[in-house]
Each structure stands twice: as structure tokens, then as C-alpha cells.
């Protein structure tokens, strides 16, 4: 008897510990339950690297991590999945566009000197570009706000002429599309006016941003280079100082801005290794550029293969409904067990509640991120946890029908049911292990929650139910077989 009191104290202590732990450590909810964005990126081999190995993955991850931290989303996580994929989770982020842009782009920064001659071409191209940009902004604002058509001060003839010049027919798509295509062409043409890169972002030490002094709505991005970069920058600026040639700043093959270098730098170029880019950036654009530049160039190109965005109320609704389902399922199982098995049924309900408590505590301890399939796995495992109890109680009933004494029936019931409980649980565990180690995404999460459930149900069925039952048997008032089986089903005592 003392042995069972010891066990009883142990189970009780465990339950209290689990409860306390659960109160302190909130469960981690998956994005499908609390809303947010999830992006999956595939790292692709390029150039000399034909296979993406773990080293390359680490390098890409390091760069992306810096960029993600720059995004400033709280509790964002970046995880390697499989051999060549990374999953980024941004809780609460409702606009995955920004993240996608920052993650996906390579941020290849180049400084180029303008080619000698044909300065006039560049001037007219830049003029055209600023016009197209202005019209594009106007049109985008109109599209966003639904403003009436207001084309004051726009020279459409000149625009049409420019389109013809660049070989765009201007028929097939919307006006905004046309403008964007034209802008791209013009930008490409501007890049052609410059020599190949003399200095790239790989010599960049850090990047910052600040609003322009004369126009606080326009931002510039400041750069500082290492000694190699500083030298190259001084060389580059020296070569064009005092000429009409410009310094081109090219990001990912796109001309961002052009700067002139004053004649005072003719002797030594701009030294000190710092520079700034002002490309008429908004605060947000400047921040994105800063993040990209700070993160450095990606060693390998990445492709975004999955973007999932879930609104926060959709998640809350899912939690509420799954909770209602889980509780009503549990309530039914509890009523059923008491009706079907009487006293041991009631004990099983206590054991099942302990099971649910331990299970949730385990989720918080490991920690398991609770997702929708995870909750489904949990609800399902409640049903399966009952199975072990049913197996035991059926055996106890069998023994009682055979005319065995109560205590002996209980002990025999447990030992007889043991092998099938273990076999059933182990086979489920084997498949959980296979699914966990070989599966991905949803499958992995489901295998984890189900596996934890199976292990715990093995523990609660074999120790908790037994301990509680034997503990209660210490009270003579409860020791009637009638509490286990209706009298009518008991064999009449033989002589």
C-alpha cells in the first residue's frame, strides 16, 4: 500500500509541476493560429557552385538573417528546412511584399564612372527618366486613391515619342505598365553610358540612412568602405572630378542615381572611404536599401517558392473553434467512460485530464509550436489515449466475470493488457519517427505532436491510472466489484 502512496505523491507532484510550468510558459502558437507571414526560399546553385552544400546554406542564411533582423519584425524566425530551403516566419506581418523584396533581391551595389563622350545623351536620358518617374508616381497615386484623371502639365506627345524610340508599342497593357516598361528601358540605357564597375558592395563596411537636409521627405543612404574600397573610391572620383562625367550608382543592374564630383577633388579624389546615395528615396525605401546593403550580397541566388499570409482574426477564429471541438470531444469521452466503466472510468477521466495537462506542458517545454494540424493531432491523441484505459478495463471486467477477486483482477488486467498496449503504441511511434525524420512541414509537426501524445499516453495509462486505482482501493468503501461491473454480470459465487 505504501508503494502506491509513494507513486500517488509522485504523480501529484508531477501534475502540480506541469501546471505551474504551463502557467509560466505560454504555448507557442503557429502562424496559422495567430496570423502573420511565412516565406519559403529555395537556394539555387549558380556559377561554379553546382550543388548547394551545408556551407553555402550557412552563408546564405547568415546574409538573410542580417536582412531579416533589419526588417524589425518581433519574434521573426529563420530556419533551414531540408537541404536547400529556408523558412522565414514573420508573426503579425500582414504585408509579405516588403519581406519578399528584401529577402529575394541580391543587393549588388556598383559604382561606375561615366564613359567619355556623349554627355548630352545621358543628360536627355536622365531628363526623360525623371519625367517618366513623375508621371508614374502620379498615376500610381491616382490608382490608389481613385482620384479623377488629372493630367495637368504632362507632355503626352513627348512620352509617346519616347515610347516609339524605345520600341514599345504602348497598346497591349495598362498605362502604368507602359510607364514601368519605359522606365526600365531608360534605366537600362543609362547603365550603358557607364564603364564597368570600379567598386562594388563587397568592400562595404556599413550603411546608414538620413533625411536630406534640404528636403526631409527625401532620404539618402550613407556608406562607408574598408581601406580597399576607400582607395578604389578615391581613384574613381579622381578620374572624373572636374569633368562633366558623372559617377553612376547601380543597384542590381539598375541605375539608382548619378552624382557629379566637384573639381576640388581633382588631386586626390574623395578620400576617407565614405559616400552617400541620394536617389529620391522615401524613408521606407531608404531603410530597405540600408538593410540590403548591410546584409551584403547573397553568395547564391534565392527564389521565393512559397508565401503564406494569414490574417490575425482568421487565426483567432480557428483557435476558438478547435478549442470548442477539443473540449466537447473531451467532455463526451469523460461522460462515456464513467457510464461504461463506473469507478475505473472516473479514474480514467482523471488520468486523461493529467494526460492532457502533461501533453500541453511538454509542448511548452520542448517547445512545440502549436499549429492547426498539431491541434488536430492532439485531439486525435485524446481518443487514442482512451484506448489504453479501455483495454485495461476490459481485461479487468473479464477477470471479474471469471470470478477473480477485485485486487487480483486489477493487477491481472494491467499485466494482460500490457503487451497489446505496448505493441500498439510502439507501432504508432515507429511511424511517427519515420514521418518526423523524413517528412517536411505539416507532416513533421503532426508527427511530433502525435509522437509526444503516444509516449505520454503510454506513461499515464501504465502509471497514473494504475496508481490512482490502487490508491483508491485503500478505501474499503470503494472496494466493491459493483463499482467495476454491474452485479448482474458477475458470476454467482460458487461453493
Amino acid at each position, binding site marked *: 500500500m505504501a508503494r502506491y502512496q509513494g507513486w500517488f505523491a509522485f504523480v501529484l507532484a508531477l501534475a502540480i509541476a506541469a501546471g505551474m510550468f504551463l502557467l509560466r510558459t505560454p504555448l507557442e502558437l503557429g502562424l496559422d493560429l495567430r496570423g502573420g507571414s511565412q516565406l519559403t526560399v*529555395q537556394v539555387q546553385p549558380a556559377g561554379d557552385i553546382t550543388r548547394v552544400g551545408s556551407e553555402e546554406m550557412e552563408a546564405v542564411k547568415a546574409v538573410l538573417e542580417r536582412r531579416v533582423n533589419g526588417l524589425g519584425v518581433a519574434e521573426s524566425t529563420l530556419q533551414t528546412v531540408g537541404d536547400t530551403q529556408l523558412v522565414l516566419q514573420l508573426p503579425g506581418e*500582414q*504585408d*509579405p511584399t516588403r519581406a*519578399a523584396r528584401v529577402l529575394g533581391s541580391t543587393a549588388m551595389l556598383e559604382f561606375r564612372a561615366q564613359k567619355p563622350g556623349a554627355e548630352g545623351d545621358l543628360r536627355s536620358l536622365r531628363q526623360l527618366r525623371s519625367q517618366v518617374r513623375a508621371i508614374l508616381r502620379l498615376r500610381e497615386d491616382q490608382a490608389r486613391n481613385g482620384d479623377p484623371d488629372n493630367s495637368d502639365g504632362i507632355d503626352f506627345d513627348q512620352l509617346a515619342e519616347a515610347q516609339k524610340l524605345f520600341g514599345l508599342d504602348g497598346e497591349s497593357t495598362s498605362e*502604368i505598365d507602359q510607364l*514601368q*516598361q519605359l522606365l526600365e528601358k531608360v534605366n537600362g540605357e543609362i547603365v550603358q553610358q557607364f564603364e564597368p564597375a570600379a567598386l562594388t558592395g563587397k568592400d562595404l563596411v556599413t550603411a546608414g540612412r538620413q533625411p536630406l537636409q534640404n528636403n526631409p521627405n527625401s532620404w539618402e543612404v550613407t556608406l562607408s568602405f574598408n581601406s580597399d574600397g576607400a582607395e578604389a573610391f578615391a581613384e574613381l572620383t579622381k578620374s572624373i572630378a572636374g569633368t562633366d562625367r558623372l559617377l553612376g550608382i547601380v543597384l542590381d543592374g539598375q541605375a539608382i542615381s548619378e552624382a557629379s564630383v566637384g573639381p576640388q577633388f581633382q588631386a586626390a579624389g574623395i578620400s576617407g572611404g565614405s559616400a552617400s546615395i541620394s536617389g529620391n528615396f522615401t524613408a521606407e525605401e531608404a531603410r530597405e536599401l540600408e538593410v540590403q546593403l548591410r546584409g551584403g550580397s547573397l553568395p547564391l541566388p534565392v*527564389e521565393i*517558392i*512559397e*508565401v*503564406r*499570409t*494569414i*490574417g490575425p*482574426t*482568421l487565426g483567432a477564429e*480557428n483557435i476558438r473553434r*478547435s478549442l470548442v*471541438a477539443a473540449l*466537447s470531444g*473531451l467532455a*463526451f*469521452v469523460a461522460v*462515456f*467512460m464513467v457510464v*461504461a466503466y463506473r469507478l475505473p472510468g472516473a479514474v480514467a477521466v482523471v488520468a486523461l485530464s493529467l494526460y492532457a495537462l502533461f501533453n500541453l506542458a511538454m509542448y511548452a517545454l520542448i517547445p512545440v509550436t502549436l499549429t492547426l*494540424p498539431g491541434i*488536430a493531432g492532439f*485531439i*486525435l491523441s*485524446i481518443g*487514442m489515449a*482512451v*484506448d489504453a484505459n*479501455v*483495454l485495461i478495463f*476490459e481485461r479487468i471486467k473479464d*477477470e471479474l466475470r*471469471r470470478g*477473480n*477477486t477485485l485486487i487480483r483482477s486489477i493487477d491481472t488486467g494491467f499485466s494482460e493488457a500490457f503487451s*497489446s498496449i505496448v*505493441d500498439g503504441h*510502439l*507501432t504508432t511511434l*515507429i*511511424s511517427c*519517427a*519515420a*514521418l518526423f*525524420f*523524413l*517528412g*517536411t512541414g*505539416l*507532416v513533421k509537426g*503532426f508527427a511530433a505532436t*502525435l509522437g509526444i501524445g503516444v509516449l505520454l499516453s503510454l506513461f499515464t495509462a501504465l502509471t497514473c491510472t494504475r496508481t490512482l486505482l490502487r490508491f483508491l482501493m485503500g478505501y474499503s468503501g470503494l472496494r466493491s466489484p459493483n463499482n467495476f461491473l454491474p452485479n448482474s454480470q458477475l458470476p454467482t459465487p460458487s461453493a
Partner: protein
Amino acid sequence: MVDASSPATADVRQLRWSLSAMRQRVWLISAAVVVVSLIGLVSSWLDPTIRAPLRPGLDFTGGTQIQLERQCDPACADLKAIAVSNVIRELALPKEGNAPLPQLNAPRVQLLDAGQSLLLRLPTLSAAQGQAVIQAVEPVAGPFKDGGQSVDTIGPSLGRQLLQSSLVSLLVAFAGIAVYISFRYDRRYAFLALVALAHDVVIVCGFFAWLGLFFQLEVDSLFAVALLTIAGYSVNDTVVVFDRIRERTQQGSDLPLKLQVDQAVSATLTRTLYTSGTTLMPLLALVFFGGSTLYWFAIALALGVVVGSWSSIALAPSLLTLWQPQGD
């Protein structure tokens, strides 16, 4: 006091269901349902719009799925799916880099929860293009609830990977279970457990193949998860019955195998019915009270539990009697 292991009389009294007497009927029923399921899978494969045993959802084919919850105060304005798809067809998407613009000429629009929410299935869109679609649909179907949106974009390669990894892990899981059962029992038990498992999986797949043919129901990665669970449940259920049968046969009883199997099945019948009942109840609660996200998942699992119970109390044990030891 009576010895716990010996009296056969008490067990015979408990024989509530003579399985061996109706084993041919059991086989006929199982075979018929399996054949109907296989026909469903094959028809789905032959269907030119599907070309797969099950109608694959976004998770497997790639694309963008947008779910929007409408603000209904108090009731939603009438909405026709065709009106929404017309708007989408006319839409000019913003360009994304040098990528060709996705074709929006065949959007699939579905109204859920009595018109309260809207499900759009489109080719793969960038985040900005997805927003453009939502903005275009808003005047027709809006206003939408803040935070009630979900946008999923999945590249086709991810779906293939998911399918592949699920299949590989499923096969490894089967092999592991087979090894375990042949180690603990013997090879025929392992073989029959896998037959029961295949039976359950085929029937659930067949049911969804028919739903795909008639109601355009698509299977997603949650369905893959459901199948894996059904497989686990099926084996677990079968093993418990087999454990009882082995216990009988090891007691060295003189009774013919058929009768021993009948006794074992009868002895575990209550347990199997109770267990599938208690597993079914939370699942039915999910079907009735859970959100639309888990609806078909719960239905697949519930069907799996019913079929799994059938195969473990009827099909697997009755097939075992085919291995009647010689000279018994």
C-alpha cells in the same frame, strides 16, 4: 477461485459474433468497397481535367490561393461567383521584374460559409499582384474584414517535394512496422496488418477521388497528414486484435484456429467499438464545430477510423484463418 487462463467455457459464452461463419460476406463487402474506390481513383486519373488519382490542390500544383472574409453586418449582400471571376479576368496585373505576367483568364472562385467568405484560386502571383487582385475584387464583394485574409502562394516544386517526402516517409514507416510485427509476432501477421492498412488507405483515397470527380473537392497537404494518421491508427487497431489471437493460440488450445480467432475477436470487440467511438467523437466534434479549414481533414480521419475498425475486427482476423495450420 478459478484459474485465470484455463476455462474455455467462459470464453465461448462471450462469443457474440461468429466471424468465421460470415467471413465470405466480410470479404465480399471489403472487396466491393475496394473495387468502387479503385474505380474512383482510375476514373479520376482518366479525367482530362484531373489526370491524377486524386484532384490535387494548391499545395501540390502550385499557385496562389486567396481567402477573404466578407464583412456581413447583419447579412451579406448577395454575391455571384461569376461576378468576381469577371472582375479578375479583366484585371491588369502590375509587372514583377522580368517575369511574364500570370494569365488570369481562368480564375476559380468559390463562396464558402453561405457566402461569408470567398476563396480564389489563381496562378502563382507575387505579393504585390495578390494585393492588386484583392483591391480589384473589393468593390464587387467587399468590404472585407480586417485581418480576415489569407494569401498562400506555393511554388510547384514545393508541392512535388511534399508529395515525395510524404510517400517516402510513409513507405519507411510501413517497412518499420512490418519489421516490428514480424519480430514480435510472425510474418503472416505483419503481412495481414499491411493488407488491412492498404485496404483502409485505398478506401479513404477512393472516397475522396469520387468527391473530386463530382464535387471538385481537392486534396491538400492536410489530406496527406490524415492518410498518415489513418495508417497509424489502422495498424494500432489491428495489432491489438492480433495480440489477443496470438495469446489464444499460444495457450495451446485444442480448438480449431477459426474458433480461436472468433473468440479473440469477440473478446476485443467491446474494446474496438469503444475505442473507435471515443476517437470518432472528437473528430465529429471537429466536423460540426471546427472551422472550415479542418472540415475535410476531420471527415477523412473519421472515415479512416470507421474503415480501420472494420478491417481490424473483420477483415484482418478473417484473412488470418486462411492460414489454417496443416493437420489441425
